[in-house]
């Protein structure tokens, strides 16, 4: 694997770390299996790309993308909380609908951002090579996001959200409005995922309506790899596990695809992904079984 390919994998892993943290909030904190992310990731990319081309400041464009993602999460929460649709199904409905929404937002299946100003533009040409600038820039944003989510989850408000996912009946008895927690959690989760999409569009120079396919699997892969490596030892470690899991996942994929010996090609990506997640899921069981 060349250095450029390696740092490219790290960069992609950091972009998807936002997805991983979002998926962690939905699946682990709220216990809400949310597939909306397959739609909110390209939604973030689409909104950002269209706004940047229209001349909007790229930071503002990314902020709008987050609001759009939050709205998508709220729709899923509404279907589940207000209309009692099974959480998984509610999220699939939103995801399917978002495919059309994303096409409408962009007006075509993909939008190129070649030569457009992005959040990264000011940092190119400061002496550092481009393939270092991108992971460094995204990495700093990931660090900020992780610190904010960590502080939140360890606050009174965050504790209410964790209780909602862990034991809703107890949470209500303690005065926690569990419906509101689901709205809030789904909004934050999908806002993070959409921000990941916004960064994806800006680091790769395009937004594509199909780029969301499998986002949930990638996010879950990162969460599970993180858990396998670090175990359950507090919120900060779990969040760090999500980020590292996301990076390691991308490096593993890159390794698998670039090793000539294995004879894999780019189109085998989805199979390799499924195989990796399966291994990450089985590994802890084997370890436990061996100890017993």
């Amino acid at each position, binding site marked *: 694997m060349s250095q450029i390919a390696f740092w490219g994998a790290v960069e992609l892993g950091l972009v998807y770390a936002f997805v991983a943290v979002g998926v962690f909030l939905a699946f682990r904190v709220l216990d809400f299996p949310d597939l909306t992310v397959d739609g909110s990731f390209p939604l973030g990319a689409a909104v950002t790309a269209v706004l940047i081309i229209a001349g909007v400041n790229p930071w503002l464009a990314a902020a709008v993308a987050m609001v759009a993602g939050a709205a998508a999460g709220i729709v899923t929460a509404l279907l589940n909380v207000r209309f009692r649709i099974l959480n998984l199904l509610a999220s699939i409905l939103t995801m399917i609908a978002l495919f059309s929404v994303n096409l409408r937002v962009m007006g075509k299946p993909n939008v190129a951002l070649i030569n457009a100003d992005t959040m990264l533009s000011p940092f190119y040409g400061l002496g550092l090579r481009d393939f270092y600038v991108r992971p460094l820039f995204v990495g700093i944003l990931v660090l900020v996001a992780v610190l904010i989510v960590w502080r939140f989850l360890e606050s009174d408000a965050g504790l*209410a959200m964790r209780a909602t996912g862990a034991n809703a009946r107890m949470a209500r008895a303690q005065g926690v409005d569990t419906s509101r927690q689901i709205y809030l959690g789904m909004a934050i989760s999908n806002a993070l995922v959409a921000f990941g999409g916004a960064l994806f569009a800006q680091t790769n120079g395009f937004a594509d309506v199909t780029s969301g396919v499998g986002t949930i699997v990638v996010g879950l892969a990162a969460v599970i790899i993180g858990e396998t490596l670090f175990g359950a030892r507090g919120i900060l470690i779990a969040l760090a596990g999500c980020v590292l899991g996301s990076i390691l996942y991308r490096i593993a994929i890159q390794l698998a695809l670039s090793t000539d010996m294995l004879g894999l090609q780019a189109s085998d990506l989805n199979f390799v992904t499924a195989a990796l997640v399966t291994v990450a899921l089985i590994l802890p069981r084997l370890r436990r079984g061996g100890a017993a």
Partner: protein
Amino acid sequence: MISVKNIKVLFGKGTPLQKQALNGVSLTIEQGSFVTVIGSNGAGKSTLLGVLAGDVLPSEGEVTIGHTDVTRKGTAARAGLVARVFQDPLTGSCGTLSIEENLALAARRGESRGLTPALGAKRREHFRERIAELNLGLESRLGDRMDLLSGGQRQAVSLVMATLAGSEVLLLDEHTAALDPGMAEFVMNLTQKIVTERKLTTMMVTHSMRQALDYGHRTIMLHGGEIVLDVAGDSRKTLQVEDLIAMFRRIRGQTLDDDALLIG
């Protein structure tokens, strides 16, 4: 103070399984009074507790806790008035959160929850003191996950949780039923101590007639969704478990199949 007026609860309305769980129950419990509630399965004990807690909204009647009409308020909305310990130790606390996180959750019951760190040094110290009073050695394990504790330990912690924030009423839902006899006695003594010290208005639902007569100031028996016995004061002092069983038999018009369960 608790006041319920002419409460009716109908489950499964319009279905073959329709059941009048409470049929016009009226009851006033004065400030600081400790009331025990007994009755056979399906008598309406749990439903009455649910009506007070907010889990069950009555089809008719009025519920007042303190000076607030809570008839139409859900569980979360009235949580500031109601502290509660559940029958199942797993229900009353979050197994995946640590002991101190559970305490922090309970300390803000019924209050707004902001971005203040849930476990500041001051709060931790306060939690440590309150848990140390239990003499279970848990004060050194505050960071442990709740699901590492035994059922009895969890109920003891739940009792502390119930008193961390102020409340108008304490509801105990057969909270010793899932424990071994030794731990049940420990939790009952702890309950007595906490209720007396804090002068809490308390309602305890129990399966044990012994408990119902030994604790509290007043005993109520429910049957078929109605109050069939309400004793307090001197007449309660002379009442024996055997008298209650006889009353049970008369009401049901049949012999009980399992006396042991009731005497327990």
